[in-house]
C-alpha cells in the first residue's frame, strides 16, 4: 500500500509499505478515507521529538471504513464508517475506567522510554514516534486500530467526512482542555493559537456556556476563521500587548480560564522569542513555552491555565511564582478522545459544531509532502491539509 513516511529531519516521502495485519484480538483494520496534518506532527518533522526512525508512517487524526475485524471485537462490523481517537486506550485499566484515556497503562509497548522522561509512561498514540508506542500512522491506505471497541466511533450518516474527521483529535483535544480546564457558564476564556485546536477550543467553550472567548494568534486568515466560525474576539499578538489587551477587555481581571494551544515551537516576536530559540537550539531547554508564560501572567487570580499544546520535557524561565502567588490551577493533558468523541459527533450532527472550513487543502495522499510544506510554512492560508488515500 502507499503511505507517507518520515525519512529524516524535515524529509517526508510517499512510498510502498506492507499492509497492516490484525495482531491482537481487539484490533480492526481500517481503510483510511480521510487523514489530516496536525500541528504536533511538526515537532516530529523538525526532529524535536528524537524517537522517530526513518521509514516510520506518520499521521494520527483520521477516519475510515472497517475492512477487517479481530475475534475479540464486539461492537464494530466490516463496513462501519468510523472516526478514531488518536491515542490508543485499552478501556480496562484504572485510567481508562476513569475516562483518562490518554494515560492508559496498557497501550504503550515502549514504556521504558517515557518512564525515564516523565516518571510514568502514558498511553500509546498512532503514528507519533516510538516514545508513544511506534504504531504505524494513518497517512496510509490502511491502518491497524488496536482496542477498536474503545477508540473507534461510528459516524452518523448526516455528518460529512470533513466534519467527522476533526472529532478524531483536534476537536477532542480542544474539548479535553475546555472540560479539564474547568470552563463554566459565564466564564471568560482566552485561547493561545488559532489553529484547528485553538478554534475548536473557542467554539466548544461557547457551546458549554462561556460568555466571552478571546483567541490570540498573528495569522489574519486564522483569526478571521475564529471570528466567523467560533464567534470569538481576536487579538493579534504581533501588533499589540496581549496581557494588556486582555486586562483592558476584561475589566482588569484577566480571563477566568487560559488555554494554551500552541506547543513546544511557539513563535514570539522580540527578545523573549530569540532567547527561547537560542536555548532550544543549544539543547539547554527542549521546549519554547512562550505562550504558557503569557497565559500564566494574563490569567485572573485563582484562575485556570491549561497546557494543551504538546511539550516534550524541560522549559526555562517559567513563572512559577505567579502560579503560586496568584493561586492558579495549572493543568495539562493529552487528548482523552473516547471521553469526548460521542458528544462531539452529536454536536456535529446537529450542526452546532462545524469544522469543514479547517480543511483548507484537501489532496491525494501522493501529494502529502507538499501538504506538509504548505501546513508547516502556513502558505496559501493553510490551516489543515487533509489527505484522501
Amino acid at each position: 500500500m502507499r503511505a507517507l513516511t518520515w525519512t529524516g529531519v524535515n524529509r517526508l516521502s510517499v512510498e510502498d509499505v506492507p499492509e497492516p495485519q490484525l495482531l491482537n484480538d481487539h484490533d480492526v483494520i481500517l481503510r483510511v478515507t480521510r487523514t489530516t496534518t496536525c500541528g504536533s506532527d511538526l515537532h516530529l518533522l523538525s526532529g524535536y521529538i528524537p524517537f522517530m526512525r526513518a521509514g516510520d508512517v506518520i499521521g494520527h487524526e483520521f477516519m475510515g471504513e472497517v475492512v477487517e475485524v479481530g475475534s475479540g471485537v464486539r461492537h464494530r462490523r466490516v463496513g462501519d464508517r468510523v472516526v478514531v481517537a488518536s491515542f490508543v486506550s485499552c478501556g480496562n485499566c484504572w485510567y481508562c475506567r476513569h475516562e483518562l484515556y490518554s494515560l492508559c497503562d496498557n497501550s504503550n509497548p515502549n514504556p521504558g522510554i517515557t518512564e525515564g522522561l516523565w516518571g510514568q509512561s502514558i498511553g500509546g498514540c498512532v503514528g507519533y514516534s516510538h516514545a508513544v508506542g511506534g504504531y504505524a500512522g494513518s497517512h496510509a491506505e490502511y491502518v491497524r486500530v488496536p482496542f477498536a471497541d474503545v477508540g473507534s466511533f461510528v459516524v452518523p450518516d448526516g455528518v460529512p467526512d470533513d466534519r467527522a474527521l476533526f472529532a478524531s483529535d483536534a476537536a477532542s483535544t480542544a474539548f479535553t482542555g475546555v472540560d479539564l480546564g474547568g470552563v463554566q457558564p459565564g466564564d471568560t476564556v482566552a485561547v493561545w493559537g488559532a489553529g484547528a485546536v485553538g478554534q475548536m477550543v473557542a467554539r466548544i467553550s461557547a457551546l458549554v456556556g462561556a460568555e466571552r472567548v478571546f483567541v490570540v494568534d498573528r495569522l489574519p486568515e486564522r483569526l478571521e476563521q475564529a471570528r466567523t466560525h467560533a464567534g470569538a474576539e481576536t487579538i493579534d499578538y504581533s501588533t499589540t500587548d496581549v496581557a494588556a489587551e486582555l486586562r483592558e477587555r476584561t475589566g482588569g481581571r484577566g480571563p477566568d480560564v487560559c488555554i494554551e494551544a500552541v506547543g513546544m515551537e511557539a513563535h514570539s516576536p522580540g527578545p523573549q522569542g530569540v532567547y527561547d530559540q537560542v536555548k532550544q537550539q543549544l539543547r539547554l531547554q527542549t521546549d519554547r513555552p512562550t505562550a504558557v508564560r503569557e497565559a500564566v501572567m494574563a490569567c485572573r487570580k485563582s484562575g485556570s491555565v491549561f497546557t494543551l499544546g504538546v511539550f516534550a520535557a524541560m522549559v526555562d524561565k517559567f513563572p512559577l511564582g505567579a502560579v503560586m502567588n496568584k493561586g492558579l490551577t495549572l493543568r495539562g493533558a493529552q487528548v482523552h478522545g473516547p471521553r469526548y468523541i460521542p458528544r462531539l459527533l452529536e454536536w456535529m450532527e446537529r450542526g452546532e459544531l462545524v469544522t469543514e472550513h479547517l480543511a483548507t487543502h484537501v489532496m491525494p495522499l501522493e501529494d502529502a509532502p507538499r501538504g506538509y510544506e504548505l501546513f508547516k510554512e502556513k502558505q496559501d492560508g493553510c490551516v489543515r491539509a487533509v489527505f484522501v488515500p
Partner: protein
Amino acid sequence: MIGRAAGLTSNAGAALLGRLQHVRLPGVGTASAKDDPATAARRWRAVTVLAEPDRLADLPSPLAALGDRVETRVTPAPGDKGTELAARFRGPATDDDIGRLRQALREAKQLVEVGEVLRMDPRPHGERPDTPGGRLLDGAVAASRREGLL
C-alpha cells in the same frame, strides 16, 4: 565486521536507555537515583492491577515463568485502584534479571486487565536505512519493555 558494528550500536541504544534511568539530574530518570545497585536490585517492583486480589491468586504466566527465584506480594490497593502486585528476586539479580521482571510484571497486568499482551510486529514501515542513529533507536526500542522506572 559491519554486522558486528551494527550489533554494537544497537546494544549501545539499549544500554543508553538503561543508564538514562539512573542519571542523577533533577527531573531526569529518578529510578533508584540514590540507591546503591544492590539496594536497587532488592526493591519490590510493583504494578497496580484493576482487579480483585483473588484474580491474582494464581500468578499470571509471565510471572510464574520466573519460578522460585522470585518472591511475590499481592495486596489490595487503597481506594478503588485494584490490587498491588509486587515482585523481587530472592537472591542477587543482574540488570538482565530485573529487565525480565519488569517485562513480566507489565505483561501480567495486561493479561489480567485486557486478556492479551499487545503485539506490535509486523508493522508497516518504509525503507529503514542502516544508520548509527537508527541502530541506536532500534536498540532502545527493543529494550524498552524491559527498561523504565518500574
